[in-house]
């Protein structure tokens, strides 16, 4: 058996999300339970048939199982890091293919807004603290300046990413930030760690996501038309992780490798992608991803995104839910849900026409890509 052999064998059968915002009155378990209930309702499964449970950014899997009344055969806990969604989906595919579980629920919750998570300083102690260097945003600012110098990329081109995603959020009823912005708004936003400004940063908000997977065969008996996982690819970059969330080569070779594996497995290429769901913890990550996947040549992502190319009405609709920058900071999980909803044609005003192939990518120290197609 190889990963390639898993093409179209595993299906997404249920997705559930919560409201996104600031919810001090509920905890991560409560939010995850809501997302789970919504996903169960979405696919019409008896929840007691779910025998696989994966928890991400939820404190304790056993408490989660207790709350949901589940006694799975397969349980996995993943840490709170942002890059886990693609990894989790691939783990669940393997569990389903081997029969370790028949129906897997993947649960993610985040309460960072109401609990005032800073993503830097004392809560993220590191060896560079004495020099005042902290936060994933600063690492991406460091990378983006290198991209600017090396390729002539500009912060205004970065603004194209933020503006396009905000436009999508304005069409998305669930999105946290719906007020349209312009390139000038992006340029005038307050600097956080230059060259990045406020609108280059993801939101921090509360919410939860649940995705239910099973085999393509079992998927036929459930409520919604299945969305198939047609390709996946992966490559980590730990050996040069001296500075967390930073890579002097923008994870180019990792993104290229993960992308090529996913394309090969799915039998498609960049030109077949109807919508891209691109991990956007910070706007530069989108440019790095576009280059790594081969949507444009190396160093040309800045020019590529100009003129609204990432908008729903552009050549490569990207993060049609508004992404982390404007919809919700669900660390990749909501982007995978959006891929499913686009393929089902459930996206209303932000629906991409004739949407048949959607790709998810996260260019991070654990780079992953997933290609979804209509079942």
């Amino acid at each position: 058996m190889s990963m390639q052999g898993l093409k179209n064998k595993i299906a997404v059968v249920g997705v559930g999300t919560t409201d996104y915002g600031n919810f001090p009155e509920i905890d991560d378990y409560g939010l995850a339970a809501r997302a789970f209930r919504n996903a169960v309702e979405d696919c019409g499964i008896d929840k007691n048939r779910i025998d696989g449970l994966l928890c991400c950014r939820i404190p304790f899997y056993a408490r989660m199982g207790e709350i949901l009344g589940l006694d799975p055969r397969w349980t996995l806990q993943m840490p709170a890091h942002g890059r886990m969604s693609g990894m989790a989906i691939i783990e669940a595919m393997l569990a389903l293919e081997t029969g370790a579980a028949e129906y897997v629920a993947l649960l993610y919750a985040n309460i960072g807004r109401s609990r005032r998570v800073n993503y830097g300083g004392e809560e993220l102690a590191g060896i560079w603290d004495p020099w005042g260097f902290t936060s994933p945003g600063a690492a991406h600012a460091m990378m983006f300046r290198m991209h600017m110098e090396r390729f002539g990329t500009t912060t205004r081109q970065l603004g194209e990413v933020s503006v396009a995603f905000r436009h999508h959020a304005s069409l998305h009823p669930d999105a946290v930030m719906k007020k349209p912005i312009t390139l000038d708004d992006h340029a005038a936003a307050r600097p956080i760690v230059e060259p990045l400004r406020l609108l280059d940063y993801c939101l921090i908000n509360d919410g939860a996501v649940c995705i239910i997977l099973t085999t393509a065969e079992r998927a036929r008996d459930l409520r919604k038309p299945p969305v198939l996982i047609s390709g996946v690819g992966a490559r980590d970059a730990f050996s040069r992780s001296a500075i967390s969330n930073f890579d002097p080569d923008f994870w180019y070779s990792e993104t290229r490798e993960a992308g090529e594996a996913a394309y090969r497995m799915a039998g498609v290429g960049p030109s077949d992608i109807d919508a891209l769901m691109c991990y956007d913890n910070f706007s530069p990550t989108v440019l790095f991803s576009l280059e790594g996947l081969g949507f444009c040549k190396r160093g040309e992502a800045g020019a590529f995104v100009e003129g609204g190319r990432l908008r729903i009405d552009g050549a490569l609709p990207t993060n049609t839910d508004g992404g982390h920058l404007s919809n919700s900071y669900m660390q990749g999980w909501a982007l995978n849900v959006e891929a499913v909803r686009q393929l089902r044609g459930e996206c209303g005003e932000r629906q991409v026409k004739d949407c048949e192939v959607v790709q998810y990518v996260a260019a991070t120290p654990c780079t992953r890509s997933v290609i979804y197609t209509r079942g």
Partner: protein
Amino acid sequence: MSAYRKPLPTDDPLMAPFWQNAKARRLSVQSCRDCGDKHFPPGPVCPKCLSEDQEWEPVSGRAALVSWVRFHRAYWDGFVGEVPYDVCLVALEEGPLLVSNFSGPVPDDPKAGTPLEVVFEDVTDTVALPKFRIVA
């Protein structure tokens, strides 16, 4: 200097030799006695050959600028009066990357490749921070 309020090095035993050397005005990186690989930050084994036989080797202190950023947000109270402040990323002549700060005059938009050399700033009685000065 007891009023220093910015973050200080933690008591990570792996890093202790680095800070002892810095106090003595020596910049150093971990070096493998078996294969010669030079690396930073340090680890319990050599990332190249997995040997535990590691030592701290002084480096030249010469480096080239890789990138830099300007913090407008103070993530620690000790930096509130400092913002905006700059943090640079430098490549030591010997290879490893180091995050640090500029010392002395810096042009408006310093470019990658700008030659640098280490200087040490005493911030407490026991800690000297290596920083980098632009070589004229």
